[in-house]
């Protein structure tokens, strides 16, 4: 709560600061409006053409690029830690000791086979929670009798949580590391022309909005055979490769829902789906410091 108020006040202060610094060469005062003062939302994308030419003699020329952080969100739930598991077991023990007596006459016909099966299973669960107590021999024979009559049910085994891609370490697989967030890293040329591991990026056309450019660039570099969804119109981060040049890469978050990357071979030589730590080991140090805060930890 306190931090939220602080963040709000900081934003107000910074906007005041930029107001003072912006050169007053804009012809209309509306261009100094803050983000609350927004034009009516239009459903069609595309910027309306500027009404008057802007004299930008003082402001330096900058190039915009968009990059996409394509995320495969977790497929399976997180494994609880040892402490969490034991705490859950402890709490279920207390629940088992204190819960209301089960009205078995309401749920089962008295003396039916199903009631016997349920009673046997309950005894098993009680034994697991509290350990063996009293005469265990007679109970065991009773439960075996019931189970024999009912017969073995067809138990459908669920898929294992560890996929074979985990064992092989196949970084191109989208089934690997089901618990974690996987991000697409691509091997291609960066701004300087060096072959590096980076996120897929591309240029922005003159009259194109950034989120549309992000989507177009992603499909241009990684192929059409991916079902992706760009989360929002807002970028999640910005990176300036070299402090001297006015080139900015705006990052957009997207999710992959189906399909796989098909590199064209021209811009992209290779790709990999990596977790946050693996990205750190693949990517240049400067790039990593610029990008690491946008990624999810787990």
């Amino acid at each position, binding site marked *: 709560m306190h931090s939220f108020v602080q963040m709000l006040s900081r934003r107000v202060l910074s906007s005041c600061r930029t107001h003072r610094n912006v050169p007053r060469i804009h012809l209309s005062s509306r261009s100094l409006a803050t983000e609350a003062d927004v034009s009516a939302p239009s*459903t069609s994308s595309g910027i309306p053409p500027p009404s008057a030419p802007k004299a930008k003699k003082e402001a330096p020329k900058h190039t915009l690029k968009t990059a996409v952080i394509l995320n495969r969100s977790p497929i399976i739930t997180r494994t609880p830690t040892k402490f969490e598991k034991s*705490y859950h077991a402890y709490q279920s023990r207390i629940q088992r000791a204190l819960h209301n007596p089960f009205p078995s006459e309401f749920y089962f016909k008295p003396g039916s086979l199903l009631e016997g099966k349920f009673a046997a299973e309950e005894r098993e669960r009680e034994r697991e929670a509290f350990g063996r107590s009293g005469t265990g021999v007679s109970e065991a024979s009773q439960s075996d009798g019931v189970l024999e009559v009912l017969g073995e049910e067809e138990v459908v085994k669920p898929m294992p949580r560890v996929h074979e891609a985990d064992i092989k370490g196949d970084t191109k697989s989208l089934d690997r590391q089901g618990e974690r967030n996987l991000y697409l890293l691509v091997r291609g040329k960066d701004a300087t022309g060096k072959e590096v591991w980076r996120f897929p990026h591309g240029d922005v056309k003159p009259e194109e909005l950034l989120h549309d450019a992000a989507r177009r660039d992603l499909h241009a570099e990684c192929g059409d055979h991916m079902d992706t*969804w760009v989360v929002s119109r807002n970028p999640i*981060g910005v990176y300036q490769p070299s402090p001297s040049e006015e080139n900015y890469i705006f990052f957009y978050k997207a999710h992959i829902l189906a399909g796989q990357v098909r590199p064209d071979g021209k811009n992209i030589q290779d790709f990999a789906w990596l977790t946050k730590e693996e990205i750190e080991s693949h990517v240049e140090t400067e790039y990593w410091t610029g990008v690491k805060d946008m990624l999810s930890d787990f």
Partner: protein
Amino acid sequence: MASSLLSLRHINPPLRVAQTSVRYAAREVNTSDPRTDIIRRVLYPSNLRNRASPVGNWRPDVARRLQRAIPSVQAHETIERAWLLHQRHVRKSRQSELDRKFQCMRTAMEKLRELDLQRYRAANELEDPRARSEEELELLKTAKAPEKKAMEARIRGLFPRELRVPTETPSRDGWNYDWVPPSRPTQ
């Protein structure tokens, strides 16, 4: 922090929160259908305090059961405090991750505002999920069922339909690598 948690120990919740003055035995009305008898017995148990009931109005053996379940009062409180501390750590780490991401977003929006005001304004526009452009309406009229489904799964401003919730175990078929793009006009 430790002192505030310890002070909770002294707040003893009242054991008796409700008390009826009338105690009645369950009426033994034997109708032809035993099922209605059972339902009546479950819904309207006797509140004479002679044995534990399914509804749990009177539980005389709580202390004994608790003795079986927990090692000791001190041990139980230590476990509870350890859990709360663990939850606090988890909450803190999640919050700090969110704060870092939010800071990144803020710097990006500030930079965009400095560089390109029109694109900044466009990025700040709210997406109305109910709004439909003219081309979309035209396409919806002429589109076939799978294309319509594909379009309805991607409404701008809402989450996509195909975004799955994580499950305990993965699906039998695994990831769909052979996805073919349908003729979807705009995302």
